[in-house]
């Protein structure tokens, strides 16, 4: 069994597009467990519950926990210690003009820690920096150089330390979950399955998921 860990960004995108029932559908299609770290629960539920503008979205995400589709993994001392360790390593990998770039924060770090404790799995995250550090750290260097218009240094020893510390983590986004749900028949009850799939993919993109128009078009053209 391979567990999935959700970042708050992906949950917020899914809830804001009214796609939380999809999470229930997916959880029923696998014996694997879906988790969110406690910091994600705070960011996606506890905090926005107190802000009227975002209260409904928080309630949608809270229902995911109430329905047992996703479990909250509390911040144990082991997770905290591992999060601090990963923080010190990851935020020392890249530097510009001798400044170490502080590129990841608690939510992303705790998700990686949790997957490390679970000895691997799937990370559901919509933003691209975390994904690139895990999948293509040297491409991230290239991106940073383009953005800062300055040379970016990679501390290869720190990078190796990070890669040795974390287990095998596969990264997917909310759009990929939509595609998976479709493959499992989620949109069959809609009046037009392909139209619903297309609409859901674009909805995730406009909710902030890091996916290009070309990716969506290419995927749809193969449907």
């Amino acid at each position, binding site marked *: 069994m*391979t567990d*999935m860990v959700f970042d708050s*960004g992906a949950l*917020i*995108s899914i809830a*804001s597009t009214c796609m939380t029932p999809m999470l229930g559908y997916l959880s029923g*299609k*696998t014996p*694997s467990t879906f988790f969110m770290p406690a910091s994600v629960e705070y*960011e996606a539920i506890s905090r*926005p519950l107190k*802000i009227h503008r*975002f209260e409904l*979205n928080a309630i949608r995400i809270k229902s995911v926990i109430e329905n047992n589709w996703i479990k909250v993994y509390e911040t144990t001392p082991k997770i905290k210690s591992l999060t601090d360790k990963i923080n010190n390593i990851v935020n020392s990998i*890249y530097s510009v*003009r001798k400044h170490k*770039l*502080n*590129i*990841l*924060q*608690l*939510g*992303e770090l705790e998700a990686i820690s949790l997957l490390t404790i679970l000895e691997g799995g*799937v990370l559901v995250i*919509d*933003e*691209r*920096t*975390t*994904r690139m550090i895990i*999948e293509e750290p040297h491409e*991230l260097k290239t991106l*940073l150089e383009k*953005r*800062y218009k300055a040379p970016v240094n990679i501390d290869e020893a720190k990078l190796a330390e990070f890669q040795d510390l974390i287990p095998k983590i*596969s*990264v*997917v*986004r909310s*759009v*990929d*979950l939509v*595609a*998976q749900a479709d493959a499992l028949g989620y949109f069959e009850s809609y009046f037009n399955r392909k139209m619903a799939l297309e609409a859901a*993919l674009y909805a995730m*993109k*406009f*909710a*902030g*998921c*890091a*996916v*290009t*128009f*070309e*990716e969506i078009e*290419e*995927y749809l053209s*193969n449907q």
Partner: protein
Amino acid sequence: MASSMVAEIEKVKVAFKQENPDHLKELSNTIMTEAAMRFDKFLAQLSLISYCLYKILSSLHYKNSEYYEEMHEIVLNDIDQAIALVEGKKLEEARKVLDHIVEHITSIDKKLTHYVVDLYDKAKVKQGSRAYLLGLSISAAIELTGADRRKLQEYIGITNISDEEGGVGIGKRLSFLKQVFE
């Protein structure tokens, strides 16, 4: 570091004194680049203030209002105070002065705006997206600027930031999910 902070605050002061919105906008972006590189919340707040002042100067609605002249004078005095405090290495007190400037901005904004979301919140989202563009994760951009996550995500979603990046496509990522669903 104090000298570079003073230099940035001085530039904002000159641009605001000269009522130059284009320069304030440019400064907002260059200061945010520096803020992201150093993960410096003081510089990030200065960037947001510069952005708000640019928006105020760009809007006749604000600039021609009865509140503008007083705000202009108060903000310039506060900026002078912030400069003196940074030069004296009293960074915490300088931060409070920046907070004071923000209060003035939001005060005039509340009196004049037609929107529920205020100018400073918009600045957080705009410059938060810039921090994300500069390679910070969304959480890091939020920590730096104080932007709301959902607002920031939605704003990023309607820009072309993600379209500039490649990566593994949806089809390939579905193969990652086989380990979960098969």
